[in-house]
Structure formats: structure tokens, C-alpha cells
């Protein structure tokens, strides 16, 4: 089996960017799927509690950083009786190669899932070379 099985528990981020944050909330590493199609590289990240207003995608040179903030739910006059998950921010950074067209990155958020489409640059798209008969 080549597919790795991953822990289901949320993973705490290891001091992102080696700097401290001003916000005192937990930071999690979102779980991602990355796959490649002919035209693009698709990145899918699970970020429950995040919507299109609270997610940030920044591309700086070759570093693609995705971050999101999820506000913890709290209900008035209710007390937490049992808890399996914590709510916090999400942060993760990837190094991307030059083959990505940096001006053509699309991002959507639906049901707490962030989907990034990184289109490949024209020059690296595979071209079919016609062979001429001599």
C-alpha cells in the first residue's frame, strides 16, 4: 500500500514561521490533498469553521501560505460537557515551483473546504510535437 494513513486528530502546528503570533489562539495545520491535472495543480484543504471572508492565501515569491481564522462557537447559557476538538486558526505554507502561473491562482471555499487551482504556466504545459515526414 502506497497510500499513507494519517492520524485523524488535528495536528498542532509547529511554531509557524518560527515567529510568535499576536493572537492568543491555537494554530492547526489543515490537512490537504494536492493533485495534478494536465492544466493545473489542485490543492484541497480541510478548514472547518472557515469561510471566504476569513481565509487568506498569499503567494510571496515561491512560498504559498494559506491561513484562516475560525471563531470558536460559544453558546450563551450552555456549558461544554464533552469535547473532542478545539477551534483555532489554520496555517500552512508550501513551496511551489516555477511551473505555476502566479497570476492565475483561483481559490474557493465551500463547506469549510478550501480549494486552490494553481494553473500551470504556458511554457511548461506539455506540447505535442508534430513530426514531419522527411
Amino acid at each position, binding site marked *: 500500500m502506497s497510500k499513507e494513513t494519517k492520524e*485523524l486528530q488535528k495536528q498542532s502546528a509547529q511554531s509557524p514561521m518560527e515567529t510568535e503570533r499576536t493572537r492568543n489562539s491555537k494554530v492547526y495545520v489543515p*490537512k490537504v490533498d494536492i493533485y495534478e491535472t*494536465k492544466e493545473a495543480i489542485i490543492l*484541497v484543504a480541510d478548514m*472547518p469553521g472557515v469561510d471566504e471572508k476569513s481565509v487568506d492565501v498569499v503567494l510571496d515569491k515561491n512560498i504559498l501560505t494559506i491561513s484562516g481564522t475560525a471563531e470558536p462557537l460559544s453558546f450563551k447559557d*450552555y456549558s461544554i*460537557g464533552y469535547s473532542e476538538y478545539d477551534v483555532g486558526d489554520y496555517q500552512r505554507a508550501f513551496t511551489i515551483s516555477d511551473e505555476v502561473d502566479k497570476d492565475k491562482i483561483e481559490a474557493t471555499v465551500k463547506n*469549510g473546504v478550501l480549494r486552490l487551482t494553481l494553473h500551470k504556466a504556458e511554457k511548461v504545459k506539455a506540447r505535442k510535437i508534430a513530426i514531419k515526414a522527411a
Partner: protein
Amino acid sequence: MFGPTVWRFGRVTDPFREMQRLQGEMNRLFSTVDPQISQEYPPINVWLGQEDVIVTAEAPGIDPAACEISVIGDTLTVSGKVDPEMLKEGESYHRQERSYGSFKRVLQLPFHVNAEKVEAKYEKGILRITLPRAEEDKPKKVSIQAD
């Protein structure tokens, strides 16, 4: 059999749950037919109120229409499915960390629930179920009569 009861506090490592997790992991390793996400999916939080409980679950990317919520007495069952990404011919994964497959969670609540009035909402990948306490299960106030 039943999931965690709500009166257990915090994130205590429970040997039984640990065993369940191990069993789930084993089942997953040896079955390729219907991928089952861990017994523990989705993670839930339970909020206790006077008249009802709120159960929230972190389940990003599920199809709310295919999600089934049922209540019998004081037992809540949530089941559903996370669909895998449909990769076409010639597409390949660089990295696959998200889990997919069917899931089912059973939770015992601290009281019987009025099944008619259960509400569920799915927003930003978080499922929220509000379960009001059944009328016949509510505590009755007994007045003391003085002679």
C-alpha cells in the same frame, strides 16, 4: 457499544476508545471495499443547556443531503459520507491527507430527546444539531405542602 457519554469531561485518554481506534485502523488497513473513516470521525463537542443539548461536529466537505441524523430515546446517530476527489485519467496525487469514506457516530445523551424538534444545520463545514429535552423527561417540581 455506545459512544462516549457526555458526562465524561475533557480529553481524557480512555483505553476503550484507544482500542476502538486501533480496531478501526486495522479494519481500514485490511478492507479496501468500503473505506471507513475512523470510529472517531467526525470529532464532536457537546454543549449542555437547561432545556437542550447542542452537538457540534467538524465535518468539512460532507454532502449535507446525504447526511443522516436519527434520534431514538437518548441516542443520537449521525452517519454520512465524504466523497473522494474524482481524479481523471492521467491525474495523480502529490499528497493525500484528507480522509474519505463513510462514517457513523453514536452518542448517548444525558436525557431523552424530543425527536420531533431536533434541528440540524450545516455551515462552514461544521454540523450543529440542537436536541431539546423530551417533555416527559423534564424534571418535575414537587411542591411541599405544609400542614
